[in-house]
């Protein structure tokens, strides 16, 4: 065992892993984290605690991860390269390990300009860091864990033992380079991979085949990312505006049909679309788990954590394996 985390144990056991996502609040409200943690607990093997996603200031990933851990939900802390240099990152790894955190996902992070792209003022004038990039961050964590050394070479009496993750956008541009992007993260030391949300399973299959041809499925656990669709509008937006995401027309049609079935009743339209969205998610999960080399799913119900219970049960992935002694 590299870290002894629950996620690592599930993956090692050969059963399909389920990770979810918990977005910390934009205020010092611990209860929000506690509430979401309890909605997810028992229905996933670990939950990612996002690190100021879309560059919006929120409870830090480490603090929220610790709260989740106290609630009995295993967290995957996230670390972006945007906000910290290698000194702060390594200090946080030591601190996070000392608090009992065992999984970490390394990501580049959305550019700070994203923070003002929606309705928020954000901090588009912030300075970013990018002292190291994702591959380098993965390498730093691995060196700390396996060699007991800081990036600069100083010894660690007690090494932080993390199960190291990285993200992968399999269908991003330039698409023929993406399998090599994955390879670099695996070469750097990524134990598990969570992909960008996938709707186009056929294209994903092609990319996974390329990854398999590079032998990557044997060296890392790829969890297919599924973003639970809430509405036809959301699917259309993801298709047109989110990098590396394309949504097949049939899925958008299905959501539109669900919406239209409600007529003018807005509340009902929302309900029907949410139901259809969960159904689509379950189908996507099942399709993803059939792809050779896929070791699990990463299901993101953004600001809708309560949907996970239903989805996981409907997908036949409940109960989750229990490794607690």
């Amino acid at each position, binding site marked *: 065992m590299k870290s002894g985390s629950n996620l690592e144990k599930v993956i090692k056991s050969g059963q399909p892993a389920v990770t979810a996502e918990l977005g910390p609040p934009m205020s010092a409200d611990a209860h929000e984290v506690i509430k979401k943690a309890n909605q997810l607990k028992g229905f996933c093997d670990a939950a990612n605690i996002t690190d100021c996603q879309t560059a919006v200031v929120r409870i830090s990933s480490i603090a929220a991860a610790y709260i989740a851990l106290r609630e009995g939900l295993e967290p995957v802390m996230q670390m972006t390269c945007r906000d910290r240099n290698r000194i702060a990152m390594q200090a946080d790894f030591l601190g996070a390990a000392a608090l009992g955190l065992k999984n970490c996902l390394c990501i580049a992070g959305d550019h700070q300009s994203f923070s003002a792209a929606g309705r928020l003022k954000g901090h588009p004038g912030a300075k970013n860091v990018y002292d*190291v990039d994702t591959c*380098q961050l993965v390498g730093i964590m691995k060196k700390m864990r396996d060699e007991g050394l800081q990036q600069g070479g100083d010894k660690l009496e007690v090494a932080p033992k993390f199960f190291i993750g990285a993200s992968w956008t399999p269908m991003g*541009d330039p698409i023929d380079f993406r399998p090599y992007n994955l390879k670099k993260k695996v*070469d750097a030391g990524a134990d598990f991979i969570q992909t960008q949300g996938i709707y186009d399973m056929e294209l994903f299959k092609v990319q996974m085949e390329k990854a398999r041809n590079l032998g990557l499925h044997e060296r890392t656990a790829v969890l297919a990312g599924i973003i639970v669709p809430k509405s036809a509008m959301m699917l259309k937006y993801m298709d047109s505006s989110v*990098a590396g995401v394309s949504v097949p027309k049939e899925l958008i049609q299905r959501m539109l049909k669900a919406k239209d079935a409600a007529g003018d009743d807005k509340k009902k339209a929302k309900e029907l679309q949410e139901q259809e969205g969960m159904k689509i998610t379950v189908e996507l999960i099942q399709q993803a788990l059939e792809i050779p080399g896929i070791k699990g799913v990463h299901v993101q119900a953004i600001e809708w954590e309560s949907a996970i219970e239903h989805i996981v049960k409907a997908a036949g992935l409940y109960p989750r394996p229990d490794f607690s002694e």
Partner: protein
Amino acid sequence: MIVGQQKKFDEIWEMVKGFRKVMVLGCNTCIAVCHAGGDKEADALASMLKIKAANEKVSMDVSHGAIQRQCENEFFTPVLEDLAKYDLVLSIACGVGVNFLSARIGKTPVYPGVNTQFFGGVPKPGFFEELCGGCGSCVLNLTGGICPIARCSKSLMNGPCGGTNKGKCEVSQDIDCAWFLIVERMKQLGTLEKLFEVQPPRDWSGSFHGGPRRVVVEHLRDIEEKQ
């Protein structure tokens, strides 16, 4: 070349309005090429200041001029004495020129009329783009001549982030994704596999992050000492 843009006139006026005798000093090298601070722009800016001063009923004596380079001693020799007679020199050179002149002019303040932005090229007239970030340790041999430090919004060293969208950077549809370009260029050169190797964390101490930098060319120093 160094690329900059003239500050907004209102901002310049706020800086300048308290001074009686003002010299607008241009620089005829890089900053003239980007039409921000050469002799023509010095002339135009001085005229605008005169008109504004007249409108605001502020008595202000505005002159203008330009030298070939505000970053080397020899070009200042003929004008330095004259410049010291003004209450303010508004330099529309790049920030280097403002610093350089400020250190030599004595008690006269030197204010910036230009926002200095980047090291760039001129792919077509009137269009300037950032191409190098002066990182102190060039890696263009690894990236097909396309700078990942200055041209990738996250200065990534190991390939594109997840934000690349149809060849554009996640920051804006107006910005080409450097890593998209790098991959295409490396394919064209037949050296794509160079990109498959993980690049370790960089040593940034040779960049600005190591503190202000100096370059000493020994043989040139020796010649000067002999003279």
